């Protein structure tokens, strides 16, 4: 029994309606779906809408919005109702899009080759050489397959007479395929029966075709092709899509710093060494791709990439410089170009356009402003499209003046009244309402020509009556159902169950950046804990303030500044007048972000490292990291508050250390986290113990108590010896006792173990320093401490520990060069035993 849903849907006579041919009357290819909607109860429809919203939320689909007051990402919004395109209509649409892709590819080949289009007067030089998008350094570079355009997107609009028009071309790194795929997964599950009965074409073949095309066209020199997806990073508006597509296509998701160019060859830096990259799907604009030859201030690109392109050693999808085609001012010239380059007329028109650089066009534009949309001729102008009829008074005068002053910078397009499609609204009185829609279609290059994705991203205006569709402004999207000529073979989109063959034990090709951030996460969390410990030891003594304690304090402050936890200053705390200054120094050692070694600075560095390996950390780990971030908020202003904050920091750092051992999968990345922790602790402890050993004899004894505290060994000491700290047993416990996880010996032993494992797995020589250090610790004669004046023993141990500290830094540099930046470290002049 009809619910009246379709009857109530508004139908406007001066627009094309995608669903209705007349009020209450669905078009033939919509009738089955309309019937389906009518028989479902309102509650059932509500449930489906809720299902779609939940699915988006649980998949974490987002679209980052620049300058969004609510935060930097918001959920992707999908309307649960698909847009349906009939098989007949699709035949023409897809042929037209494939042709346009072929044409634009040929235009790129001409502009970066012989430039006949310009010399024959088919294209104004201003629209080529006058565009920032034209990259002179790319001139003459021929891509490996001869193809410039591998993935192409085109925005279409349908006018009231039912015809489709091209309103924009996307030729650099078009976005939308991943969102289209995501929309399909969700919406096809909301209406599974309708999806099957309507013979909707699958999307999977398109992606497979693209993948195969890349593999076959990449210059592999007989190697198995490695293709990567290059993203600007997590702050990009479509980062979700980059990650989603990379996973779907099986491509490593990389940032510029993950790649390096050596001898005109692109490599991915992995923990296992450099791996040659044969193809790059880029989501980075031309300008940012190579700081050496394009925008020098780009931190996102890969230095030397253009060299590899010129040498035809890497396939870029799309070719660098393809952004030159994104100007709407080219539209008017394409029909002539199509005849010249393809020898055929264009199957689908672009929306009528007038480039103001031609005097007759300028005249037409100024006379017919109300019927036109004014756009920049150069996308680099960052100007929004303006509807002539909306401009009044001063604004209108100003625009006209600007156009007259620089006519070549403007293009006018006919204003297409967009077609309408039904949208489900949760809150409005009328559930089914109409909104303006536009299509984004995609084509991909294969060695046999362009294939078109049988589907689209249907973009919906954010509210009724709004004409500009932009995801950046908060638009909605729809799944697009393209009907097949006949029944569809049942093939699944994503493999539903994994088999034994799919099981992975370790992640291969872990990017070096991941290892580097884990390594520094290890070092920074260890450093936070060590600083917090020694600062707490100092603060508790000041709080207790006696003369005796002052003497103890001076050694303690020396040690704190020795490990960088305290700013360098005179460390004499005996003077009463200095007391206030000392308090301030200690407070800033805790919370001053401007001070490099402060707890606050280390916490911030830790947070940055953790953010870069977000997907590898458990939610428990994140809770602790979040608590660490708030531990110093608000900044402590009294010693008591500082003590409380330091306790929080220590506690949470200890949790992190626990997670590192018990909560993380022990793959290659994890090993770097542990290496970082051990290296940091080896350096820190060695420095602390050296301070004690280098003190004169009477002072030395007064330093043992806090040394045990700072080395977190006081409980063990008391349990073992039940007496006040003495030099020999303390040295044994914090230096030599390999059963104590806070001893130097323990760090050396475990470093040796992890490095040996890493040398074996990753095939590099074992750094020689660590075994030497272990040997020297083992040979050290502790009986030397038993003599009355053991200064000689102290000096010998101090020298050993100074080498141990040096070794820690040498190992850190070695790890850095070998695994993270893959460069050669010059042999150092310093000698290391």
């Amino acid at each position, binding site marked *: 029994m009809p619910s009246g849903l379709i009857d109530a849907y508004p139908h406007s006579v001066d627009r094309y309606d995608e669903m209705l041919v007349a009020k209450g009357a669905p078009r033939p290819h919509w009738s089955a779906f309309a019937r389906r909607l009518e028989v479902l109860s309102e509650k059932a429809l509500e449930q489906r809408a809720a299902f779609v919203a939940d699915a988006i939320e649980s998949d974490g689909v987002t679209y980052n919005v620049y300058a969004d007051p609510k935060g930097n990402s918001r959920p992707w919004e999908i309307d649960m109702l698909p847009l349906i395109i009939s098989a007949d209509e699709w035949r023409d649409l897809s042929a037209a899009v494939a042709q346009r892709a072929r044409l634009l590819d040929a235009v790129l080949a001409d502009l970066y080759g012989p430039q006949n289009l310009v010399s024959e007067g088919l294209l104004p030089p201003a629209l080529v050489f006058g565009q920032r998008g034209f990259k002179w*350094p790319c001139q003459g570079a021929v891509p490996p397959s001869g193809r410039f355009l591998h993935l192409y997107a085109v925005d279409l609009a349908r006018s009231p007479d039912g015809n489709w028009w091209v309103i924009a071309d996307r030729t650099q790194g078009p976005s939308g395929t991943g969102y289209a795929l995501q929309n399909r997964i969700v919406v096809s599950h909301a209406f599974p029966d309708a999806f099957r009965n309507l013979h909707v074409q699958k999307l999977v073949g398109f992606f497979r075709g693209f993948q195969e095309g890349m593999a076959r066209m990449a210059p592999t020199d007989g190697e198995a092709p490695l293709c990567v997806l290059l993203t600007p990073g997590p702050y990009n508006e479509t980062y979700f899509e980059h990650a989603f597509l990379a996973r779907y296509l099986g491509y490593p998701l990389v940032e510029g710093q993950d790649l390096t160019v050596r001898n005109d060859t692109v490599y991915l830096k992995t923990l296992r060494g450099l791996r040659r990259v044969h193809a790059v799907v880029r989501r980075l604009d031309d300008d940012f791709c190579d700081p050496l030859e394009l925008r020098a201030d780009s931190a996102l690109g890969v230095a030397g990439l253009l060299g590899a392109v010129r040498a035809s050693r890497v396939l870029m999808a799309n070719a660098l410089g393809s952004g030159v085609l994104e100007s709407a001012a080219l539209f008017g010239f394409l029909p002539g170009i199509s005849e010249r380059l393809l020898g055929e007329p264009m199957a689908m028109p672009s929306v009528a356009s007038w480039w103001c650089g031609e005097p007759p066009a300028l005249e037409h534009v100024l006379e017919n402003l109300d019927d036109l949309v004014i756009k920049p001729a150069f996308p680099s102008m960052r100007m929004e499209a303006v509807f002539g009829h909306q401009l009044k008074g001063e604004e209108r005068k100003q625009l006209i003046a600007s156009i007259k002053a620089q006519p070549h910078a403007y293009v006018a397009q006919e204003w297409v009244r967009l077609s309408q499609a039904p949208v489900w609204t949760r809150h409005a009185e009328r559930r089914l309402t109409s909104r303006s829609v536009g299509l984004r279609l995609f084509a991909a290059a294969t060695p046999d020509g362009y294939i078109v994705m049988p589907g689209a991203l249907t973009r919906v205006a954010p509210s009724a009556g709004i004409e500009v569709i932009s995801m950046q402004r908060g638009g909605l999207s729809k799944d697009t159902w393209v009907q097949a000529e006949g029944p569809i073979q049942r093939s699944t989109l994503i493999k539903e169950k994994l088999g034994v063959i799919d099981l992975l034990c370790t992640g291969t090709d872990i990017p070096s950046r991941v290892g580097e951030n884990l390594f520094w996460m290890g070092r920074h969390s260890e450093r936070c804990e060590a600083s917090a410990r020694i600062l707490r030891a100092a603060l508790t003594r000041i709080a207790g303030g006696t003369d005796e304690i002052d003497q103890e304090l001076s050694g303690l402050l020396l040690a704190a500044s020795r490990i960088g936890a305290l700013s360098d200053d005179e460390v004499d705390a005996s003077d009463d007048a200095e007391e206030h200054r000392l308090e301030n120094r200690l407070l800033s050692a805790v919370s001053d972000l401007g001070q490099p070694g402060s707890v606050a600075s280390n916490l911030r560095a830790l947070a940055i490292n953790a953010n870069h390996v977000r997907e590898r950390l458990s939610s428990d780990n994140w809770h602790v990291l979040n608590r660490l971030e708030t531990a110093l908020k608000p900044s402590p202003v009294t010693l008591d508050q500082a003590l409380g904050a330091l306790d929080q920091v220590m506690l949470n750092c200890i949790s992190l250390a626990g997670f590192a051992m018990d909560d993380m999968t022990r793959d290659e990345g994890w090993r770097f986290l542990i290496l970082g922790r051990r290296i940091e602790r080896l350096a820190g402890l060695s420095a602390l113990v050296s301070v004690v050993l280098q003190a004169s004899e009477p002072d030395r004894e007064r330093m043992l108590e806090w040394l045990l505290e700072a080395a977190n060994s006081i409980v063990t000491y008391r349990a073992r010896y039940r007496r006040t700290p003495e030099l020999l047993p303390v040295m044994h416990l914090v230096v030599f006792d390999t059963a104590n996880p806070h001893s130097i010996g323990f760090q050396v032993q475990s470093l040796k173990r992890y490095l040996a494992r890493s040398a074996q797995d990753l095939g590099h020589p074992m750094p020689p320093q660590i075994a030497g250090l272990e040997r020297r610790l083992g040979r050290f004669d502790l009986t030397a401490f038993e003599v009355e004046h053991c200064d000689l023993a102290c000096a010998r141990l101090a020298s050993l520990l100074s080498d141990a500290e040096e070794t820690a830094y040498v190992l850190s540099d070695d790890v850095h060069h070998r695994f993270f930046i893959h460069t050669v470290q010059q042999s150092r002049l310093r000698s290391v035993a």
Partner: protein
Amino acid sequence: MNKVRYHIRHDTTYRYDQPVGESHQLLRLAPRDLPWQQCVAHRLEITPEPTHSRDFVDSFGNTVRALHFEADHDLLSVRSESWVELQSRTLPPVEDSPPWESVRDMLRYQAGRRMDPDTLFATAFLFESTDVRLKRDFADYAGERFTPGLPLLAAVEHLMQRIFEEFIFDPEATEVSTPVTEVFASKRGVCQDFAHLMISCLRSLGIAARYMSGYLLTRPPPGRPRLIGADATHAWVSVFVPGLGWADFDPTNAVRPDLEHITIGWGRDFSDISPMRGVLLGGGGHEPEIAVTVVPEDEFAELYTDADQPALALDPVPDLRISNG
């Protein structure tokens, strides 16, 4: 026949605060061969030894040396040495050039009108580029000297003269990154700024102009000897004249370059032809030390006598008679 030969030594040294682990560099230091200029010998000496080194020719025809360093280094020094021979150019009399409006109209787009290769190439130098702006202000400034019907070269010469007279040479006033609009407002700058300004003026009127990079022979103050390292790189402007080719103008000195301007190469602006451009991994705090010495052949032996600073012998030392034979 009026001929001169120069020896040029151009040293660039970077000292880095911290070791640089990886570095890519592009050098545009090799003087081009031109109808009036022949680069008889050229050599680059680079320390440390680069891991990879390769030459290529860029889109504007300049030879580029691409270097890649993969080992830690805290110093990078590049010595470029050249022997260049110049002949007097046949400078066309300014009156022989076409009226400037006809040149502008000829470069302007007209649907279906074919362009010969020279004109096509000239259109690359008609628009905005990294350091060049197209502005009404610039067009107006130049327009006062571009009176109706004036031959193009006469008009350009007037513009050059005006910039020379109204702008003050002041190395303290600008940096490499100072925008041309600021130079226009402050009326101060160096050769690079004046070149960018003059190019901006010309292009704002629809005239094709390119940025020339090279060296200038300087004269020591009267009675003083020529000194090693006392010179600098230089920049000037070249204008496209249909039928005649490109004509050079030096707004910093108000001269039409002839026997004292040595050309390295050209581009749309400085950023296309900067002598050295690089990307580093690591490093920090690195202003280069640059020393340029241009010396006529007859003073060469006299200048490079100091045993501590011998000019690297170019082998074989070119001989004018032989190279002409």
